[in-house]
């Protein structure tokens, strides 16, 4: 079954900066889909178009039969998503616990339930009780990512989006976060979209991979087929990723 359907989506900023030039992509229900691409190729813009935060220039995005352009069903549309933003995007003015509670408050008005779900989710992502009352500025980047993940999971979304989940983290913390994501995807069966330029993350999490380049989807398929897919850019991307890793050794 198709969950998310990008129908020839284009996005042009200020009438001249063409970032997305006709994206056609279908995501299946319950799959873990990776969107790979170079820095600045428009991955974050694609995500924000999907969320309706940036209005698309033409085309349509349909999730479970609801269009992103449908103003009347906006709330139902938004309720389907949760996002783990690139930098976590925890609210500065609230403690870690309050961040999760605040999100829950928007869908569930019972303060007690909010508190218990929030605590449960924070513990599930491996955060300590004594972190709960700290402000985002007082905890490390890795902890912020986890807290943000807890906030995203607390909303019980149908589609979860991870924007650069490992960027800015050391390899060990990055690995831990990746494992958390994998457990999340496996445990809940939700549709996951991960945006990254890190092939290792893709290998680890992907059911299918799409490669974004110059505003087009170059190729979609299984990660294992990437190296011999016949697309020049995709193979180059693949070789470069492997090369850098070997080089580091």
């Amino acid at each position: 079954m198709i969950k998310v359907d990008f129908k020839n989506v284009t996005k042009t900023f200020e009438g001249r900066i063409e970032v997305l030039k006709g994206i056609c992509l279908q995501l299946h229900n319950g799959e873990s889909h990776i969107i790979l691409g170079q820095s600045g190729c428009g991955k974050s813009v694609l995500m924000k178009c999907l969320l309706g935060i940036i209005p698309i220039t033409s085309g349509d995005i349909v999730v479970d039969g609801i269009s992103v352009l449908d103003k009347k069903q906006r709330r139902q549309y938004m309720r389907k998503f949760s996002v783990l933003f690139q930098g976590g995007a925890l609210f500065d003015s609230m403690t870690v616990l309050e961040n999760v509670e605040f999100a829950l408050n928007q869908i569930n008005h019972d303060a007690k339930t909010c508190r218990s779900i929030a605590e449960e989710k924070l513990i599930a992502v491996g955060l300590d009780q004594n972190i709960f009352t700290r402000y985002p500025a007082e905890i490390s980047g890795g902890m912020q990512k986890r807290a943000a993940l807890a906030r995203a999971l607390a909303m019980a979304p149908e589609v979860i989006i991870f924007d650069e989940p490992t960027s800015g983290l050391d390899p060990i913390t990055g690995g831990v976060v990746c494992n958390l994501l994998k457990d999340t995807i496996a445990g809940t069966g939700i549709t996951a979209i991960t945006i990254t330029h890190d092939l290792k993350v893709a290998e680890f999490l992907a059911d299918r991979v799409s490669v974004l380049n110059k505003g087009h989807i170059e190729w979609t398929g299984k990660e294992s087929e990437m190296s011999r897919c016949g697309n020049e850019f995709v193979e180059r991307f693949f070789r470069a990723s492997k090369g850098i890793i070997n080089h580091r050794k």
Partner: protein
Amino acid sequence: MSFLATLGRYSLNSLQEIGRVFIFACTGLRCCFAPPFFLREIIHQLISIGFYCLPIVGVTAIFAGMVLALQTYIGCARWNAESAVAGVVVIGLTRELGPVFAGLMVAGRMSSSIAAEIGSMRVSEQIDALRTLHVDPIRFLVVPRIIAGITMMPFLVLIADIVGIMGGFLVSTTVLNFAIGSYINQTVHSLEMIDVISGLVKASVFGFALTILGCYHGFYSDLGAKGIGNATTGAVVSASILILILNYMLTALFFGI
């Protein structure tokens, strides 16, 4: 020719900007009257404007009152009208100096910090995060600040009036050798209700102007450190100028000139 073209482009851009600010202000004001409200944020902002701006407003007011007494005395002495000092000080402070100085000081302190705060929330995608939670950023960020500005500024100005009058009193009775009893008497007799009320109404309007401009510059800043720097400067400068313009217009309106 190219000079004219530049001038024209500049004027058009300015007009466009003014239009955008106006629409933004209307949207913000409209949202102030319809739920949902974020009570916690409102209380937070009430404290940050009402309480944390008290010291600077107080210090400004006391020195404004002191210097006003001193200068008025010098001026009045030339006409042998020294007895007018108390009246000029109290009317000058409640009608003009109290609201304007408080407005400028709070603009300097709050408009910039509001612009920086909202600008950096935008950079770190917190505003996008609000949207994904289906929370309207205007209601969450702008409304609490507007409410705090509108309600706390009159309070600050009232304090400024009292402190400023005390400053004038202090200088008059110690440096200028006025008799304490008659100075107080003259102060009370010169003061009319309209003086104070017009000052407080001005304060509310200034409170709205300085918060909305802070929010506007935060929301529409360019991203990056330089963008946020420009936004904070822009917020303070535009808020200060707007306060002075509004001050003239409100004075003309109140006293029918």
